[in-house]
């Protein structure tokens, strides 16, 4: 689906979404009951750098300041953070974390946050956007990843063929929607053959009350031990003893 097809299917009652510089877009969509959904996003696989982050974060802060409980939809197609000595020099880590913090504050302030990955979503840009929402949805064809396999092969000094072979037996490192769903990053994959508006409403009706990604990862087998280890550490810290 193209971005326009996605927006039309999500908001048959109408949407006003403006393209900005740096392949960003900001706007609103109408729900069937007349309610408003705030929409922010990055498109065309654009890399996310300092100039892209500031307007997105600013918009989220305006949404929080305005009050209310409008859901925020974060639509993501980004190749990852901008790889630039200039942006690193200016403290890109702070900018990416700032956007994530704004989205997390929005959630805490009563705005359900839904990430929708329809293209790429990688690494630091993933953490600042898709990874900072209450629930992350994928569309078929989405390519969430930490790093592409050829780069992974270079950095780990392992043959790419070996990584490809291993990725058939475990979802714990390989790029892609299937792996990211199995480890609990992606909650569900929507069906483009059905109206996205209905699927969006169903998602909003079933928002998790807390971070359930590790529990999902355990149930799906992609992250067999994370949830229980986090619980064990928390229990020990709180002085709860196991029998």
């Amino acid at each position: 689906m193209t971005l326009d097809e996605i927006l039309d299917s999500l908001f048959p009652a109408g949407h006003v979404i403006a393209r900005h510089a740096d392949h960003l877009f900001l706007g609103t969509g109408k729900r069937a009951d007349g309610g408003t959904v705030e929409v922010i996003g990055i498109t065309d696989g654009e890399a996310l750098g300092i100039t892209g982050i500031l307007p997105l974060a600013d918009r989220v802060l305006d949404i929080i300041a305005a009050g209310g409980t409008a859901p925020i939809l974060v639509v993501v197609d980004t190749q990852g953070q901008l790889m630039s000595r200039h942006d690193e020099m200016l403290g890109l880590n702070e900018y990416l974390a700032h956007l994530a913090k704004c989205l997390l504050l929005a959630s805490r302030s009563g705005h359900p946050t839904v990430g929708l990955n329809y293209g790429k979503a990688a690494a630091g840009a993933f953490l600042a956007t898709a990874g900072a929402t209450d629930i992350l949805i994928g569309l078929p064809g989405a390519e969430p990843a930490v790093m592409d396999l050829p780069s992974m092969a270079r950095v780990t000094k392992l043959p790419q063929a070996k990584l490809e072979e291993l990725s058939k037996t475990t979802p714990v490192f390989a790029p892609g929607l299937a792996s990211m769903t199995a480890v609990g990053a992606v909650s569900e994959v929507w069906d483009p053959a059905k109206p996205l508006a209905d699927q969006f409403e169903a998602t909003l009706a079933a928002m998790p009350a807390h971070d359930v990604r590790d529990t999902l990862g355990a149930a799906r087998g992609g992250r067999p031990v994370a949830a229980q280890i986090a619980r064990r550490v928390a229990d020990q810290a709180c002085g709860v003893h196991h029998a």
Partner: protein
Amino acid sequence: MTDMRHIEAGSVSWFLSTARERLTRLLDQGSFTEFLPPTERVQSPHLALFDLPAAFDDGMIVGRGRLEGRDVLVAGQEGQFMGGTFAEVSGAKLVGLLRAARDDAKLPRTVLLLLDSGGVRLQEANAGELAVAEVMRAIVEARAAGVAVIALVGGRAGAFGGAGLTAATCSAIAISEQGRTGVTGPEVIETNKGVEEFDSQDKALVWSVTGGRTRRLIGGADAYVDDSIAGFRGAALALMDRAPTFDLATLKAEQARLAVRAERLGACNASTEMWATLGVPDPQAIGNMDDNAFRAVVAGVEGTDHDAR
């Protein structure tokens, strides 16, 4: 005698110490209790696939102790094990610690994160990435519950990738000259964009872009410490009582601070240009001066001390 040993321990190099050495020397003698210690043999279920040896703490040590009598929770990354990377087990240990701090008001109201990490462990990339996302959310939730989460950065691996974002999610960051923060490592930038973009072998360049002094000067770290256990101890004590509240006002202030930085320094192509723009009298000398001289320079630069994180 105990005082003398403690003082000697305090002067030991943070950079050259292991995570366990940092923790035991940072905290009051005998006060450290570890959660899920190596004796419980909780190790990565994935490293064997790559014929890599596991560690019984997976390179992440979590627990509690006292810092000059103050109760604190602590987490330390071992930069020498798989680059201190976030992975399924190492990440989950930190997530559990932060969620405990968030939920139990009887626990210490300070978490010290001794970060020493290149980011996500690629062999467990998706688990590591998710762990960072969960850590960032848990830090925010803990901060909102009144917990001060302080990042201490001064190890060999620095705080890159997910660790760089984690540091910037904390209430405050203390950094030494050897400490570095960033997102994409210089080698990866060079591989992807070419040596013209970033010569990762040029140590002075790497340090000028990501190192402790430049971060302190542009407001990317809140305290600059000498490379010693005592230095980090002092900074942790100073920062833990000054943590900004996690709320709209703080994030709006951060938006303003980051926008101003982009505006003022965005046209700069080198760190010395940034420092000159900030009013540093002799930018070329930043790399060579001693810590005290550097601190004096920091004191003369506006915007280094802020509550906007």
